[in-house]
């Protein structure tokens, strides 16, 4: 039972990490790529940390470090993504041709 849970969570984490990496490679635009990279953290990292924690036991160095790493990734990854998107927009990186709305440009 425990092994089945570990395998399922680890495979889900690996699959989402792979799809996030493929999205970062294939997306047409910086802003779309940032969106893919956040997917990589929330659905790629957290199931994998949970899988290792279930495998090694919750009361262990692995459980404590997994909790800390999950907290840090959840707090710091949106922060850096937001700062990067804002800096890219202000430094004049264009959206791709298919983009339909550009809200900050409409404002005075």
């Amino acid at each position, binding site marked *: 039972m425990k092994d089945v849970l570990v395998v399922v969570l680890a495979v889900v984490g690996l699959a989402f990490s792979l799809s996030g990496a493929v999205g970062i490679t294939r997306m047409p635009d910086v802003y779309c790529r940032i969106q893919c990279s956040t997917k990589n953290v929330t659905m790629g*990292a957290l199931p994998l940390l949970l899988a290792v924690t279930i*495998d090694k036991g919750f009361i262990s160095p*692995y459980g404590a470090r997994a909790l800390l790493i999950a907290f840090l990734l959840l707090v710091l*990854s949106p922060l850096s993504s937001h700062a990067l998107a804002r800096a*890219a927009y202000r*430094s004049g*990186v264009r959206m791709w041709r298919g983009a339909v709305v550009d809200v900050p440009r409409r404002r005075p």
Partner: protein
Amino acid sequence: MSTFLAWIAVGEAAIILILLVRLALGPTVSDRIVALNTVATQATLALFVYAAVADRSPYLDVALWLASFSYLGTVAWARYLERGLL
């Protein structure tokens, strides 16, 4: 179970190779920073799983350090892109 987790660690490290394509191609600096940020996350995960495979808890501290300080590089690059060298 240990060999399975070893393959998971290898897979997480192999994803870095896909990201290196974007790091090499990326037309602007921002694309490269996105790729580098994700490389840091993947390295953290690979190191964490490898620590569980090798049963060495000191490696966990390296993963924790990588998770907590990789964002500083991204924020520093973003600040540089936005305002120039200050």
